[in-house]
């Protein structure tokens, strides 16, 4: 097989993998503050993409549509936190797993009825005429995905490190009880992390939709891979998700080329189960000591 074709597969797969990394990063944001994550995150990606599509239909320019979609994502994240997570966290139960699944199910059904069941194209001003680098084609659209994903992750990391509010979130991640003692509200920090996570999901939706089209089922496929990335990298691994996301994206496009497109999900799933079996805390994560 031609090395060039393999290179092409790896590069476009890895660029796509950054979307998985972005969604996985959203899981990390909430997991770090509250040890919980939104199992309906895929639906959040999908609904945000539909909202963005509707905005475009209403004639909003791309530059305005993106902030609107991001704001919607943040609000949706807050709603998930309020409806499905907070009570379970207060009760120190794992009820949030079921409740976020329920919220996701509701969003799925609602979008199916509001926007229809068909996959629809998503207009974008960014060109998809390929550019050539060393015999490998890359479209500006793919590059925009990469830039957007890396850019927002960088901004959020900067926010966490350089601002007082961000440091408060970090404090809650490190030790919620100690943070409460010095006057930081853990609940607020968790809310903020869910808002950021929803925003990240919305951005993922806006970025990926021009490539994959928009439809009610788009979220489920994306979120499975994002789960794999988050777990394989480790739910507290920070930028580890970027590496794992790109690796998984590349692996997936090779698998679909060699094994057939039906198998494209398989490597991620196998990797997830293996990673959990061998290193439950992930490749880049840290193991915790059992305390009694």
């Amino acid at each position, binding site marked *: 097989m031609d090395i060039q074709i393999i290179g092409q597969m790896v590069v476009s797969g890895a660029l796509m993998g950054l979307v998985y990394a972005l969604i996985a990063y959203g899981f990390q944001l909430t997991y770090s503050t509250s040890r*919980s*994550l939104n*199992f309906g995150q895929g639906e959040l990606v999908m609904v945000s993409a539909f909202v963005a599509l509707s905005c475009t239909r209403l004639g909003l320019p791309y530059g305005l549509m993106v902030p609107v979609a991001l704001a919607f994502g943040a609000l949706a994240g807050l709603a998930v936190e309020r*409806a499905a997570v*907070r*009570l379970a966290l*207060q009760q120190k139960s*794992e*009820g949030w*797993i*079921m*409740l976020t*699944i*329920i*919220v996701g*199910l*509701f969003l*799925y*059904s*609602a979008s*199916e*009825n509001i926007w229809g069941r068909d996959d629809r194209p998503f207009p974008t001003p960014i060109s998809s005429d390929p550019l050539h680098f060393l015999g490998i084609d890359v479209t500006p659209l793919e590059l925009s995905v990469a830039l957007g994903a890396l850019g927002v992750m960088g901004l959020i990391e900067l926010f966490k490190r350089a601002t007082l509010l961000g440091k408060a979130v970090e404090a809650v991640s490190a030790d919620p009880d100690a943070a409460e003692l010095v006057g930081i509200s853990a609940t607020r920090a968790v809310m903020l992390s869910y808002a950021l996570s929803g925003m990240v999901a919305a951005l993922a939706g806006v970025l990926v939709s021009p490539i994959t089209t928009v439809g009610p089922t788009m979220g*489920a496929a994306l979120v*499975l891979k994002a*789960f*794999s990335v988050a*777990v394989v990298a480790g739910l507290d691994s920070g930028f580890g998700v970027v590496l794992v996301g790109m690796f998984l994206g590349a692996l997936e496009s090779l698998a679909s080329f060699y094994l*057939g497109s*039906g*198998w494209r*999900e*398989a490597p*991620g*799933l*196998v990797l*997830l*189960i*293996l990673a*959990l*079996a*061998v290193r*439950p805390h992930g490749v880049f994560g840290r193991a915790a*000591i*059992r305390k*009694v």
Partner: protein
Amino acid sequence: MRGAEFLALALLAALPLAVRNPYALGLLTLLAIYGVLLIGLDVSVGYLGQINLGQVAFLGIGAYTAGLLVARLGWGLAPSLLAASGAGLAVGGLLALPALRLEGPQFALATLSFSALTVTALNELESITGGAQGLSLTRPLLLGRTLESRGFYWLCLAALALVWITMRNLLGGQWGRAFEALRDSPIATDAMGVGTYRHKVAGFALGSGLGAFAGGLYAFNFQYLQPQIFTYDLMVVLLLGVVLGGRKSLWGAFAGACIVVLLPNLLSSRRLFLTLALAGFAAALAAGVRALAGRRTGAFQALAPIAATALLAAGGLLAKHTEDWRKAIFALMLFAVMVGLPEGLMGFCSRFLAGVFRVPPPALPPPARLDDALPVRAVAPGALLQVTDLRRHFGGVKAVDGITLEVLEGSVHGLIGPNGSGKSTLVNVVSGLYQPSSGRIRLRGAQARRPGLMAMARAGVARTFQNLQLFSELSALDNVMVALGGVFRLPLPLVIAGLGRAEERRAQADALALLAFVGLEDQARTRARDLPYGAQRFLELARALARRPVLLILDEPAAGLAHPDVLRLIGIIRAVHQRGITILLIEHHMDVVGELCDQVTVMDGGRLLAEGAPEAVKRHPLVLEAYLGAPAEGLGEAAP
């Protein structure tokens, strides 16, 4: 309860004689199949307390195993059903080996991936499964006779009844208790010698086997299979069925199956749906207002179900086709139930009915004699526990740094030292929770071959925990019964056949004797987490004694106890000692140590500081310095 089960079975069996409608018969058949499936799912979701998103894959594996055996190899009905269950059991066990070391979200994700992978495989292995085209089969013969739909319904119902009886006998006994125990505290389950891992794997494999069994019936019912039947959508509906019906309850699983099967039909009539939605709204409103007025719950728990049911009713009025909104309706119902009635519909109903009719719980047997529950042990002179140059380091922290220690058989050995001196780490290593970094631990001269909580528990070490590790959802009686050593000997098949009752009574009697020994005989039915703090400490002691240990390790048993309770504790420990049990006691209360211990070891900074009789140790200059931070002379001057 037995009567209700029998009545329900008779009613279900008689229904097809009265109702000739093939559609209704189809629903009843599906109800029986889903009943089996959800009972299986309840093992992991209810008893093991894990969100299992893989049950639908086992339904698929069972369906395809049975379907392929029949369609390709011409197997009969009974062997292919058996093979399907076996496949589910085996694959479930294999998946459980890695997956069950995980907790909570990680476990949910592992099972979710597994089901996605299964659907991919069913789709892509076209040469075997027929891929997306589907697999057609004809229902095989049962003992040479064809089954028409009514006969097949009775077969499914018989299967449900069989599974029901099996599971009732199994889950009502020591197995069910072990499942629940490991959900509440895996560490204590191991420390009590029950075995977290093996029970988790067995429980998950069992639930998976039942799922695959249901899958076999499913294949013979529809006689046509497609991979996309067994996807996430169905999984969510099943999971929600269990939660809605009520976890840890056969009736709950059955109620869940009813809802899952009947829901599409309820939605087909707008009036019926609207009536139900409004009824739900009224119930949520009434319950919410009452709860808020009585300040019994938070505002969210009262208001969220009202909002969800209101949305349901409004949707019923506004939506054009309620069937299209099926999933959203399901989601709203579930949301209301999960927040408002966490124990599910059947859990609520049974509590409500028990309250209305004042059903007394089944009577307990009289307590056994203490000599039977906790036989007096003959003390052989010599060392029981020998610890040699033991080290346990965490990164750079040398929590235990070269401890050599000997505990004589039949003694009460005190272990004291300032906070952070490594006492708890030492007993955690001795009891098998942590692996030693280096050094040797010998019990009666023999070294444990495989260190670990289970191995040490089996060797006769029982312990309590500084931070309580009770099985908080179980009653005090059950907490003790889980740990009872040497009572449950009946082989599994006989337990399943329902012959475990005599053993269960004996175990109850023994456990009651131990509860009486620590003064908790009146609290036997109280849930552990509802007991006051002091009583929880005593319950942990009773649970450890249920192991009939050789060596009992007590990790700060008096911590946080009120003075009268401390005196009671001293009395109990002394009585335990008199029964020939060797005790290793970590304690801060010097009066407790002085009162009880024959020998005291003092630790500081992970090292041995002093050793000797309590009075001698108390005056040891190094000990005074470690505790008070001042040389002994300085202390003497400052004292009045």
